[in-house]
């Protein structure tokens, strides 16, 4: 049984991450993906299913609202799963995506966690979870992820536990790895660099894996002229 992912999927992920790295470098930012080649980020998990796991460290961000001398870094850990139907083995689609983000303030050689969140698109979505959602958290990424990127991180001392809103799952669009990277470029990089990235993305987008979200499609089809709060949940 093949242990490597279909080449067209490997090359699509490769192209996406490479374009992201390219625009970051153009913006004088540093991108680190660790030492391991992209092919090692894929693991076969079933006859027609693969898992992808990759972490990316974006360093050198200088948000306007931060004090001078402080820079921000972001670590993104994406875990995605894709599969194809037995009867149509080349029809690959994303069936699960979990993208965790840690935002750090970099000062005096220290990486201090200031914000954490994760975007989720679960394979088996409970009835009470929006199919695509974000949760704000205060959790550091697991040590193995930080070790891969050679990051030593701290959390602010004297925390009084997670804030009250941590538990709420907020519905989002399809914030999979490609969407998160697209939004990161739009949010942090200059407009002209985003414009070039968006232009390149147009050529790439149809090669990327797209998520299956039949419950939302069906729900929206039932009421195409307006949104309903329940659209975003797997069952209504």
């Amino acid at each position, binding site marked *: *049984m*093949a*242990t*490597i992912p*279909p*080449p067209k999927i*490997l*090359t699509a992920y*490769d*192209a996406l991450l*490479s*374009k992201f*790295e*390219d625009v970051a*470098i153009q913006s004088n930012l540093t991108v680190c*993906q*660790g*030492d*391991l*080649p*992209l*092919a*090692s980020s894929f693991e076969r998990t079933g006859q027609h299913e693969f898992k992808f796991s990759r972490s990316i460290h974006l360093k050198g961000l200088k948000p306007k609202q931060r004090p001078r001398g402080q820079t921000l870094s972001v670590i993104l850990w994406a875990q995605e799963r894709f599969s194809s139907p037995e009867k149509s083995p080349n029809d690959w689609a994303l069936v699960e995506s979990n993208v965790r983000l840690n935002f750090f303030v970099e000062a005096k050689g220290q990486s201090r966690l200031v914000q954490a969140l994760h975007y989720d698109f679960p394979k088996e979505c409970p009835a009470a979870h929006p199919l695509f959602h974000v949760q704000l958290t205060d959790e550091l990424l697991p040590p193995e992820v930080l070790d891969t990127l050679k990051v030593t991180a701290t959390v602010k001392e004297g925390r009084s536990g997670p804030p009250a809103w941590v538990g709420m799952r907020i519905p989002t669009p399809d914030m999979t790895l490609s969407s998160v990277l697209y939004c990161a470029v739009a949010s942090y990089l200059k407009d002209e660099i985003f414009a070039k990235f968006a232009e390149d993305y147009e050529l*790439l987008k149809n090669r990327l894996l797209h998520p299956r979200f039949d419950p939302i499609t069906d729900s929206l089809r039932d009421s195409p002229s307006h949104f309903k709060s329940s659209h975003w949940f797997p069952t209504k």
Partner: protein
Amino acid sequence: MSPKDGTYESRLEKLLQKAPLSNATLVLADQDLSKSGGSFAGLSVNAVAAASTRLSIPLCSYSRQSTASDYEWRRRWEEAYITLKFQPGRLAELARRALIIARGFATIRAALEKAPADKTPSRLLATILGRPDSADKLAQYGMGDQSRLTIVPKEGNWDNRRASLFLGYWLWNSILRYPGLLANEVAAASHLNLGIKVFKGPQVQALFQKAVYRGPFADRQDPRWWRTALDEILGAADVADGLELVRARVDKRAKRSSCSVEPADSAGYYCPILEHPVSLKSSRGSLPWFPRGADLTRVCSTCLDSYGPWLGV
């Protein structure tokens, strides 16, 4: 022509524009020109490179190295000329390889005549190689390569001679050299998890024949394989690796690849310094001087210990 007639570069430039050299397709020069006599005493290959670059004539130099020394891997891949190893007594081999290089540049130039001008270098080269879908991977071989990009003509303003020079050097010195998009024999065998002797077998070669690179500079005696095409062959056969395929179809006792650092481990990757197969565990990738696309290329831990400062680690 005497030294009074100008610098080495300008004198060479004039010579290369006069018959019988005026239609030269390739300049072949010894790497060590220090023994040049007469008006060219003290000439260096850099002066030859400058003159040939101005005239957009490809330059191939050869070094009289009797062994595969440290020299080869230390050579920067941004250099705007090609270097061949010349083993004394093997002049015919040097000539054979120089001919392949001259033909490669001619092929690129002929393809450029037909190619639309409004393409990026990576898309243009992908078209020339007959693999438009490899443009993204090719672009990764240009990332961070600022010294080379300075000679890239602006989009829509391609001078085909100059563009063929740029694309040819890029293809030879980077894309064909560092396994990632393509793989040499050792790297392909390692990627497929096959021992090198197994991979060289004619029946095994036939299994992977479809993946052989046939573009500019292709050399039957030093072949390359498209990595994606190798993967597609494995995917179509639904096997874990080349070893499973070869054991099923050719020889059930075929040997797996072996890491040059820890022979008990399978390899998978290629160390460009020792030119040996190496495992993920016993190697390191993403070094600053690697092209970003060269993801089958990793420096083995033995070389990291020996050459750390050279490697920027």
